[in-house]
């Protein structure tokens, strides 16, 4: 039940944010998008986006499962829940700089993993 409800909630939240910021991109999403641009591949022409997304999701999941639990939580809180650095630091008890460092390293390692899988990042 949780996975279903969480996805619904997330989509509703995203729709609300997009509606509120229809004239320009939300600064939060710009920041997160820039971060994700470091580690996720560019579009692969000719491949259906849905398949691509699903494949990547599975890869990211398997990658995250190789990480320490703390790193998993920080990554998911940031990019799934859209928590700010401050919120994650408060949640975990880590310093903000440590949260940033963990995210940076996780993105770097994710990028390396995807490159090994043949993606161009």
């Amino acid at each position, binding site marked *: 039940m949780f996975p279903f409800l969480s996805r619904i909630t997330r989509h509703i939240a995203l729709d609300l944010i997009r509606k509120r910021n229809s004239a320009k991109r939300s600064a939060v999403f710009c920041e997160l998008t820039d971060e994700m641009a470091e580690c996720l591949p560019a579009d692969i022409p000719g491949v259906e986006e849905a398949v691509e997304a699903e494949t990547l*999701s599975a890869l990211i999941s398997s990658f995250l*499962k190789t990480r320490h639990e703390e790193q998993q939580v920080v990554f998911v809180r940031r990019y799934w829940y859209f928590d700010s650095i401050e919120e994650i630091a408060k949640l975990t008890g880590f310093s903000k700089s440590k949260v940033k460092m963990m995210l940076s390293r996780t993105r770097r390692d994710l990028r390396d993993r995807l490159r090994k899988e043949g993606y161009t990042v």
Partner: protein
Amino acid sequence: MKNEKWIDVIGGIDPNLVENAEKASGNDAVSSRKARKFTGFKRVAVIAVAVILTVGGLLMLNANVRAAVLGMFVYQDEAGYQRVHYEGSEAEVDIHSVSIGYIPEGFAAREMTEDDLGEGYDSRIHQIRIVKEEDVGLSAYELANNYWPEIVININRAGEIDWGYDRDAFEMAYESTLNGMDAIILHNDSEIESTNIQFSDDKITVNVWGIGMTMDEAVSVAESISW
């Protein structure tokens, strides 16, 4: 991924990861890290190891260094030397009336002049050398080259030890400045190990310690220090 497609990609990750991250907003695992306390056996073990290393480290020092270190804290060390660490708080002397008083028998006080020091001369520095009476007439460099041990007093109100004739003395003086002392008096007379003078705007604090020195002798030295 230059657009927001990543949102859908991340959105499709394993729900268990998402659920775990949601639970982390509670008290388990990650968030409990904040409340994690260093208690019980771990704490005792770390403290015990620290104590053992500290004591062991001190015991491993050579006798002179160990004596100097322990002299800061104990009155009498294992070798039986009477150690005095006199903070000088009872002998704060007027900044204008300090005088060099303690000169071991057979030695004399010789003030270094510009002729002696040349480029090393600094009007802020009063450099007094306690030398053997027979060597009073020697130049500074002759003194430096002639013998060790030697007694050097460098007093610098700027808080720096510019130089010392003897490398060991210089290094000790330099270390003392790092510890906040403005100057150091070094005696290699067996009675006295070292004296630190600390300047502030309105007082001079003198720390005196030495092998075999009594408290009265330490006070006497402290009260007689001058520049």
